[in-house]
């Protein structure tokens, strides 16, 4: 997008020396009737690209307006005459924006793509080549021929050849059709399959496609496209499963320490996630107020803040309440539930009962299009990466540091650890703080895909316990496998039964699983387990 903008600026600067567009060509753009508008766009698209592009671009961006009888491009406080591309001084007061609807927008983006096929920038041409594929038909053949002749980049050339093949499907020459159908077999776009299917069908008792060789080739092409589509479908489903798994893991990792390793049934875990999510929101507000230029990077600042805020809440909880209740699970459960209600009410009082808005930074919006029917959103990819990083960091802390060793020692055999000089009380506090901090990190990640509000934690507490219990209490590896397994299982089930039934089935599955195997997927072996 930025490159297009730069290009446009270039055009705007050089535009003053160009010949003007006939204003009579522009006037119908402001018509109320969509048909007239579309005809006007088609007429404009025949003009020289340097002249037509700024106008069509402005129309697409909603910055084209009608001032009296004149069509103008509004650019902030400035106004350019659309016909001559020169600034109007003073800017007209009452300029009525020219609106477009989806139908016009579709025609417009096809026209824009066709014009951009001849752009000097590779990225712009690549984008344009992709867009013309959507609308390629016989009318566009001359244009595509011209673009193909001028194109040097092999990747874009392949794209254009696909578009060309699509456009020549309607040719009267069977040989041309055969070539087109064969080329289209390399496509992985479901729309191409739709174009080919009629070729293999009968209309009445007449074949839609008279030539049998073309029919056979169409059949082969459809099969190869379908294979690729099915592959992409499964890949997509696996990715959504992985993504849900990573979210479950982030939500549950903190609990894997506080409940899994330390054995505290922490009902306020969801609220620790909430603390993390609100930290992301707070950092966003701080950046918005003091560092608006760096707003896109607020999330990086939110990571340590979310960790520390949640860890602080965790340490306070442990010091003030939980440490007095070790070994009394029922009282711990009640006390932490009370803390959970308390924290929710605090959030409600401080930030209001309504959800707060946490925007995705620009670098997390959009996605990469692997195949025409498979797009992986950036925010999901980043969260998968983030959960791997958090997991690695936690593993390292537990297994490579002195604190980690103490934590493991205390949870395995508290009196013995105390005997050899481990300060068990302080280790408990630090371990709980660590678990809470990791929950805070989970909250920061959740703020990017879910709603942030005082009650958000209640939605995750069940999922988190599900993951930890399913994985086996006291096991990090168990939590990882359980989260991924649940994620993929839920997503495949959802694809098949719908979200409502999938949720029920997953819960029933877990109840049965826990009855049959109460120790979870991975059970700790050894004498200390039973004590």
């Amino acid at each position, binding site marked *: 997008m930025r490159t297009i903008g730069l290009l446009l600026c270039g055009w705007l600067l050089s535009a003053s020396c160009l010949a003007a567009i006939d204003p009579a060509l522009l006037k119908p753009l402001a018509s109320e009737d969509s048909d007239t508008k579309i005809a006007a766009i088609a007429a404009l698209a025949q003009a020289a690209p340097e002249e037509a592009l700024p106008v069509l671009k402005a129309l697409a961006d909603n910055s084209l307006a009608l001032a009296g009888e004149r069509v103008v491009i509004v650019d902030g406080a400035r106004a350019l005459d659309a016909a001559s591309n020169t600034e109007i001084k003073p800017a007209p007061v009452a300029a009525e924006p020219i609106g477009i609807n989806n139908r016009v927008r579709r025609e417009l983006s096809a026209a824009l793509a066709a014009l951009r096929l001849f752009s000097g920038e590779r990225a712009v041409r690549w984008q344009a080549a992709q867009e013309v594929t959507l609308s390629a038909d016989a009318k566009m053949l001359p244009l595509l021929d011209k673009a193909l002749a001028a194109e040097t980049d092999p990747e874009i050339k392949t794209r254009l050849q696909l578009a060309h093949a699509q456009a020549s499907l309607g040719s009267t020459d069977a040989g041309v059709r055969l070539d087109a159908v064969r080329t289209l077999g390399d496509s992985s776009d479901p729309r191409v399959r739709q174009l080919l299917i009629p070729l293999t069908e009968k209309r009445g008792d007449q074949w839609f496609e008279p030539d049998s060789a073309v029919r056979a080739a169409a059949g082969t092409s459809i099969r190869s496209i379908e294979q690729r589509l099915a592959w992409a479908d499964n890949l997509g489903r696996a990715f959504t499963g992985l993504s849900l798994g990573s979210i479950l893991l982030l939500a549950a990792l903190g609990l894997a320490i506080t409940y899994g390793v330390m054995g505290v049934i922490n009902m306020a875990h969801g609220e620790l996630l909430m603390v993390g999510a609100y930290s992301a929101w707070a950092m966003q507000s701080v950046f918005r107020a003091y560092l608006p230029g760096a707003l896109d990077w607020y999330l990086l600042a939110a990571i340590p803040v979310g960790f520390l805020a949640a860890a602080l809440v965790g340490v306070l909880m442990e010091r003030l309440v939980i440490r007095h209740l070790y070994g009394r699970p029922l009282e711990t459960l009640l006390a932490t539930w009370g803390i959970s209600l308390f924290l929710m009410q605090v959030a409600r009082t401080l930030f209001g009962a309504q959800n707060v808005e946490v925007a995705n930074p620009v670098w997390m919006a959009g996605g990469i299009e692997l195949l025409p029917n498979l797009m992986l959103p950036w925010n999901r990819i980043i969260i998968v990466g983030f959960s791997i990083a958090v997991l690695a960091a936690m593993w390292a802390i537990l297994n490579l540091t002195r604190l980690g060793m103490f934590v493991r020692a205390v949870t395995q055999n508290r009196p013995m650890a105390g005997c050899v000089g481990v300060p068990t009380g302080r280790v408990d506090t630090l371990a709980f703080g660590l678990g809470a901090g990791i929950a805070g990190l989970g909250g920061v990640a959740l703020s990017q895909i879910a709603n942030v509000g005082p009650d958000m934690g209640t*939605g995750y507490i069940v999922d988190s316990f599900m993951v930890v219990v399913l994985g086996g209490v006291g096991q990090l590896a168990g939590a990882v496998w359980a989260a991924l397994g649940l994620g993929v299982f839920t997503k495949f089930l959802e694809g098949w039964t719908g979200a409502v039934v999938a949720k029920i089935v997953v819960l029933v599955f877990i109840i049965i699983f826990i009855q049959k195997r109460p120790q979870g997927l991975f059970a700790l072996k050894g004498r200390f387990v039973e004590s």
Partner: protein
Amino acid sequence: MVRRNFMKTLSAVAVTAAFGLGSVNTLAAETIKVGVLHSLSGTMAISETALKETALMTIAEINKSGGVMGKKLEPVVVDPASNWPLFAEKSRQLLSKDKVAVVFGCWTSVSRKSVLPVFKELNGLLFYPVQYEGEELEKNVFYTGAAPNQQAIPAVEYLMSKDGGEAKRFVLLGTDYVYPRTTNKILRAFLKSKGVADADIMEEYTPFGHSDYQTIIAKIKKFSSEGKKTAVVSTINGDSNVPFYKELGNAGLKATDVPVVAFSVGEEELRGVDAKPLVGHLAAWNYFMSLKNPENEKFVKMYKDWAKKNKLPNAGTVVTNDPMEATFVGIHMWKQAVEKAKSTDTDKVIAAMAGQTFNAPSGYTLKMDETNHHLWKPVFIGEIKADGQFDVVWKTKGPIRAQPWSPFIAGNEKKKDAPEGK
């Protein structure tokens, strides 16, 4: 003697005291209590909080211009917390403890259904400001939102028209409760009557508060790639809309390929979302903030001033939407009806409501139907713009009459177009 006199004085004092207290009581009764029943927390707070603010603003405005029959209105605000049984409890409290003359409230149909028995039992009066599925006509309720023929059906007709993209396949997507289920039942019957086959309709539901729309978006993509032009009709309610639209934008599903028309998404819901990837997706309503007419300018300015004065969160960027307009219209019509009936008695006000008119921010003079308790409303279809506002691309010629009993549901032709017991 002295003693008797003393007693007399004492009783006189007592009597005057009683009178005095009495006059204090009558002074207190110089206000009319009105209930405001909207969720201020939980999944529906995203939508309903603004309605509470609108109600309070309208009440303040009426009080400033002299109140109703010379009496000030006194709002009683309760928070049913998106918890359906709590709606019934709170409405019972409003009607029997606070003795309110009228209640403005509810958003989801499930909340309306849960308060209905209470209003019938205590003969209360409810003004319901949100578009809904119809199939209901109660003496104690006035519906100031749209019935299906005032929103859902025109929207689908638009999608099937040339300008709407000539959609031939439809995804009916909703939250799993009574409004989306019934609306989709009506739409399915309507689509069938237009020759759309069952195989070309996909129906999907998600639980309240659902936040992972990856699978559903992938399904929509697949369904839309299987041929004919596809459109999505969304009846997703509450804060699930934020993750839904985020996912939609990130998955690159553009309005030019697969337009999504929503019935519960307005300016307020879009505040939490980056609207740029959503340009061109649609919403069907009976009011948009972007409408240009003097009544709307007044209404928008009034709400913006109210937000600033009361320091609402993000007061600088507040927006108005359809249910807010319906709340505003409802309160004003109730005021007019009370003044016509010269009483706040439920039955008298119900009688006086018939045929009330009000010059609404939608730019039309809306009329409360003489018999069926629904407003005549104009229908607008808007496309989302990059700033989260709507650009009206289609509208009806004028207000149309509501059909609470949809002709597309079997058995409805026999039902009476007026509430029972009236």
